[in-house]
């Protein structure tokens, strides 16, 4: 099997296909600290893309509550159980990826098949905390119990397991932006991709009898617009853009800066070796041990960096641009205490002050001769 480099695991790994990386790679950053689990992203995606017949239990975008939630149920736990545990030496993975698992009778990539009922409970475990809170806990300053919302979409991986598994080559990664798509004409519904995807983000449609997955809102991306799940996010937890692939990363590209230069946002389960392109800013209040399992090495540094944001204007500026424009920001700068974002055509599309201006309105409005008060 050919080998290719995977920067997320700090080494070469096996992958069935050779090929240059795309011209640039679509990527997302989700700030878990800001997500309130409102599911607006889920609804935006579902309403637009998967409201047809056979798509009743298909959610290209879902928000699950960790530690107990998961859609499909146990997507991560089942793989973690079947796959050897991740072993890191610093930033290098020395355990095997799903493409290197040759212990069983199966040809890699290794994976498991979810059952139909696993898709029937997208809200299982929602809002549940990791353990029971003790009486009186709410009086104290710290809450020892934790949970966090993890929004999940297709990771449009560098080394997609779905592409590797499809015997018909009906799944492909677009050379222009790295979006991974299922050819709806060629797919014959073998469901090998459903089995292989570690994130379980390829779905089988029982009416069209073919597999479907998140299309990265490519008709919008082609017009320079962010994905619907990104635009609709009321908490502005998401940023959608591109990572540099064929050229070295640029400091003025907010995605490159946050992911590659600062490593504030981390990939989800990098040990599987697919090179996922949704990066998460880890939740500050969740124990490192749990986060290490999901995001690999670098959680502690990322948390430290996030806590120090107010002294880090360039990084703070990049984060201010989350949800600041429906257009994809490909370049940004910080001028004084203002973050500015430009689109691909070099048009300014966002200008966000670090501190929102404060307007004071006097108690008495002289023009209208009325008192203002905040009761109706």
């Amino acid at each position: 099997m050919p080998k290719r480099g995977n920067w997320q695991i700090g080494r070469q790994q096996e992958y069935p296909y050779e090929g240059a990386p795309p011209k640039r790679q679509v990527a997302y950053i989700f700030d878990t600290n800001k997500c309130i689990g409102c599911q607006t992203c889920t609804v935006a995606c579902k309403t637009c893309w998967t409201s047809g017949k056979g798509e009743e239990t298909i959610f290209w975008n879902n928000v699950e509550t960790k530690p107990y939630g998961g859609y499909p149920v146990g997507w991560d736990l089942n793989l973690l159980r079947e796959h050897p545990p991740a072993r890191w030496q610093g930033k290098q993975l020395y355990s095997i990826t799903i493409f290197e698992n040759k212990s069983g009778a199966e040809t890699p990539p290794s994976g498991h098949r979810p059952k139909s009922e696993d898709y029937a409970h997208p809200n299982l475990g929602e809002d549940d905390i990791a353990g029971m809170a003790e009486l009186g806990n709410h009086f104290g300053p710290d809450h020892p119990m934790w949970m966090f919302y993890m929004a999940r979409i297709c990771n449009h991986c560098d080394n997609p397991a779905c592409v590797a598994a499809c015997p018909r080559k009906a799944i492909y990664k677009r050379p222009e932006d790295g979006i991974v798509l299922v050819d709806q004409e060629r797919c014959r519904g073998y469901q090998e991709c459903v089995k292989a995807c570690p994130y379980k983000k390829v779905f089988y449609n029982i009416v069209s009898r073919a597999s479907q997955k998140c299309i990265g809102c490519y008709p919008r991306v082609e017009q320079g617009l962010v994905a619907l799940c990104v635009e609709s996010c009321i908490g502005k937890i998401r940023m959608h853009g591109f990572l540099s692939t064929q050229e070295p990363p640029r400091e003025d590209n907010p995605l490159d800066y946050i992911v590659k230069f600062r490593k504030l946002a981390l990939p989800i389960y990098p040990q599987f070796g697919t090179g996922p392109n949704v990066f998460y800013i880890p939740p500050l209040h969740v124990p490192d041990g749990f986060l290490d399992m999901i995001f690999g090495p670098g959680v502690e540094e990322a948390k430290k960096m996030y806590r120090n944001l107010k002294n880090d204007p360039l990084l703070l500026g990049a984060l201010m641009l989350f949800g600041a424009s429906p257009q994809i920001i490909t370049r940004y700068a910080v001028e004084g205490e203002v973050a500015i974002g430009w689109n691909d055509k070099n048009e300014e599309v966002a200008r966000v002050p670090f501190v929102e201006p404060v307007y004071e309105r006097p108690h008495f409005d002289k023009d209208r001769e009325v008192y203002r008060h905040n009761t109706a």
Partner: protein
Amino acid sequence: MTRNNNTLQIGWLVAGIPITVAAMLTVLFLASRRPTVVFVPTGSQVEIAADSNPNMDSGLGIGAQPAGPPPEVKVVRVPALPSSDDPFVVDWDKSPAVELPLQPQQTAPPMLDSATVFNVRVQALRDEKRIAWRLSWADDTPSSNVEVSQFSDQVAIQLPLVDNAPFLMGGKGQPVRLMQWKALWQKDIDEGFQDVKALYPNAWCDLYWFDQIGATKIGSPSDSNTPEFIAKFANEDIARQWLIGVSAGNPMSEQHRVQPVEELAAEGFGTATHVPTTTCAGRGVWREGRWTVVIEHGLDPTDPLTARLLGSNVQNQISLAVWDGSSGNTGGRKHWCPWMPMKMQ
């Protein structure tokens, strides 16, 4: 005479211990043995086949190959081919049945780990205009619906278009033709399109967008939760917008299937391509633990497959694949047999 009850009971106990131990050891020994599968061919048709090839061993397991020449499929010429609507018509008795051994596909990934179907019984008939095969195999668990991680039973016939085409899906420049029957498609035809309601009778969706828009644009109030909805509106643009496979023209997504058989052309693994205009037809029925499927194809001299089948000095060959849906067979995870000789009458 007095009986010493205590002595008697101790005597039974003493005799019972070695008997119990021996019985347990026997059970342990038997349980630790690998199960041995023995096939006992029954019925007159198989005997005919066995007569035609005395070396044929219909009890073949995985990897075992018959000694001597492989069994030959004889295409018997009849004045009029029976309709494929009933796979059990007596006309089929005119064709000798041959049991072809199957093995799990373990040449190209994704592979089938272990076999659950070991033989397929083949008969073939032809008349002037058509050729038909009757295929039958044992399957205790018929699967004719699909869902995530659930698969349909299937069978496929493969025929080469050129000499020396590789028997696994052909090769580059060495095309093969395939005719594939699926239990799911048979159910679509017998009972109507297998919609969400067929799998989940109590499922209910509050709102399908196309239902609302369809009701206003098409001017007909509809209930998209009923299976009839698909049949009624699948060709309307407004509904196709939410049936992506249908609007892309994916043959898997066909909502108005007329035949449970699809013709495919292939030149190697992963290249199977739908043949849009086909003379294929067929019908499959599951009865008493067996699928019996008739697949037929028109004999049109302009068709490359017919030209090959009827060509002079051609050694015709046939290969088969069977999928056991309940064992997770799908795509390349199938049972197959290599080229077997086929004689046209």
